[in-house]
């Protein structure tokens, strides 16, 4: 990654400055014994027009980071740049950043249209411009019919749309969304995921989206930052995050994982030659800034491992089939290994297929090429 010399000078090489650049941001709450490090030395670059997701478990600091970008809190240390301008000390009303709040925070004493026009009025836009923009926004979120409703008479999904329209109306440089879909039921959430992504493409505004739902993050994002305990563990595209998780936390937080112990034979550049317990040798790419040595942990995704009947020598692992879970689109096989741990494989179902395996059967597991990924530890 290119280190950016960051104190707000325009970077002459890059055509567009990053939408958001956080430089070694730390945020502490409280003092002395009760001190909580909500963010611990976080650096990240979010590009213009990007759909960027902050993903992590509850309490990992996602909301804290959003609040620092929005200006509701100031960082304890570090700086936040908006298009190369240091905004760390600016109040929220002087940042071209708008927020869609988790509880929407719609103004209950105003109509839908008034909520949407609020930001534009505050910016002192001309009347006819406001009128036109509010109309456009209502159309964008398909709420024209409800423009004169009070916001407490709307369903959750409708409120969500109004909150979005309200935040988009002033055309901010960056839109922050703090778990905007978490209050919606499953079906509506799926619909809104698609609509949100569509909206981001249409408006061309940089979205910073917070969720603790890994599936949501994978389907919507251009890039994901996985966070835990105030730190960013990995930043990458959904594919990178899923296929090459940097460490055990990322691997187990996103998707299902099997962890195996492997021996490092040699390291060549960013790749390592590994020896599996079966004696087979495989190549694995390495996580950033990590040179493994000796015995290390690697991850194998269930769908990257194949099940074969019998305990032949060609398998990478041998065990007893303990449980078969039929999931419609695919089937999960739980295999008990000799060391009493469970290994899970998963294969897609074919039409009219009858189950080829049965419980208690001896089976072998064969890893597909590039299935093994070394983890940082």
């Amino acid at each position: 990654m290119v280190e950016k010399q960051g104190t707000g000078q325009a970077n002459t090489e890059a055509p567009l400055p990053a939408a958001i650049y956080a430089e070694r941001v730390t945020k502490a709450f409280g003092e002395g014994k009760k001190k909580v490090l909500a963010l611990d030395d976080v650096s990240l670059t979010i590009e213009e027009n990007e759909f960027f997701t902050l993903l992590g478990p509850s309490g990992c600091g996602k909301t804290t980071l959003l609040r620092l970008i929005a200006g509701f809190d100031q960082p304890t240390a570090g700086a936040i740049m908006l298009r190369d301008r240091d905004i760390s000390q600016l109040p929220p009303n002087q940042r071209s950043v708008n927020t869609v709040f988790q509880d929407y925070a719609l103004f209950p004493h105003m109509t839908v249209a008034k909520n949407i026009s609020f930001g534009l009025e505050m910016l002192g836009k001309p009347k006819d411009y406001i009128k036109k923009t509010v109309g456009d926004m209502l159309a964008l979120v398909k709420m024209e019919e409800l423009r004169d409703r009070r916001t407490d008479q709307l369903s959750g999904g409708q409120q969500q749309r109004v909150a979005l329209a309200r935040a988009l109306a002033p055309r901010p440089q960056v839109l922050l969304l703090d778990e905007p879909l978490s209050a919606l039921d499953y079906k509506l959430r799926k619909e809104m995921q698609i609509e949100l992504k569509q909206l981001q493409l249409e408006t061309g505004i940089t979205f910073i989206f917070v969720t603790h739902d890994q599936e949501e993050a994978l389907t919507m994002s251009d890039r994901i930052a996985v966070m835990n305990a105030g730190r960013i563990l990995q930043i990458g595209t959904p594919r990178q995050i899923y296929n090459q998780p940097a460490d055990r936390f990322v691997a187990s937080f996103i998707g299902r994982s099997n962890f195996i112990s492997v021996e490092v034979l040699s390291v060549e550049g960013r790749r390592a030659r590994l020896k599996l317990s079966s004696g087979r040798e495989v190549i694995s790419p390495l996580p950033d800034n990590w040179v493994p040595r000796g015995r290390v942990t690697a991850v194998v995704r269930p769908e990257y491992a194949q099940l074969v009947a019998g305990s032949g020598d060609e398998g990478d692992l041998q065990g007893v089939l303990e449980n078969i879970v039929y999931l419609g689109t695919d089937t999960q096989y739980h295999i008990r290994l000799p060391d009493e741990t469970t290994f899970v494989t998963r294969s897609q179902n074919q039409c009219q297929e009858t189950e080829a395996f049965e419980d208690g059967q001896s089976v072998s597991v064969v890893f597909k090429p590039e299935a093994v990924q070394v983890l940082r530890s």
Partner: protein
Amino acid sequence: MRIPKAASNPVSDMQRSRTRKNWLLSAPALVVLAAASSGPLLIVLVYSFLSAGEYGGVVWKFSTDAWFNVVFFRDIFDGTTTFADAHMTILWRSVRLSFITTLITLAAGFPTAYFIATRPRRNRSLWLFLITVPFWTNLLIRTFAILEVIRNEGLINIGLQTLGIIDKPIQMLYTDFAIMVGMTYVYLPLMVLPLYASMERLNFSLVEAAYDLYATRHKVLHRIIIPLVKPGIIAGSILVFIPSLGAFVTPRVLGGGKKMMLGNLIELQFGAGRNWPLGAALSVTLLALVMAALLMYVRTTQRHSGSVR
């Protein structure tokens, strides 16, 4: 939500009978309340249409003299009738001082309530407790304390004189100003408490949302906070304005005999003036004023209540 009319709906029937039972259960309390509130009022109303007894009390003879005397003054020697200036002055002073007191308590109480509502939850009860501390002392004693502060040889005047800022004491006692200071001090908690109650319910992420949408502090106050805490503002104003209008102890102590308010005028009629019917008529006038003020509040609230939850 509107409930559809369905006469034979078993659920609504059940609800109705339950409501009826609730009414029955609360009937004794309602009877006591009705008797205790409307009884005395009725007596006062009847007295205002009777004649004054020579040594106080009333004579059971119908007369509208008392009502006449509220507005007009009849000279006992030549029988000429003039407008009752004194009464009007007192009436006007009562309304004016109560109104100003309400405004001052609102101006002082609003930031106070906002301050308490924005403290961490566990500290709020301490602040609220401090607000109610003055209630521990008798009203009369508190009023005399104010007198000690503002009288000519009081804290302020002596202090200013010692500092050489003034050489003659400023006459503060026995002025409208003194009454206002006293009433503001006494009624401030009545403003703070309802204001706090509605500010505590205020969702502060609405305030953040407004800042986020480029509102200045001033705009946030006027477009978000004030409309949303309006019920508290109205409740507090009523709680301050109405007792101010009928205030008795404060104007008596701090206004001396010279600056009377309606409460003192009424007391005078029942006491030294020995004109009970006039006192009763003045009381009814006060009641009417209060009702008019309440009606005005209700109407202004209703006009804006399309917006308030």
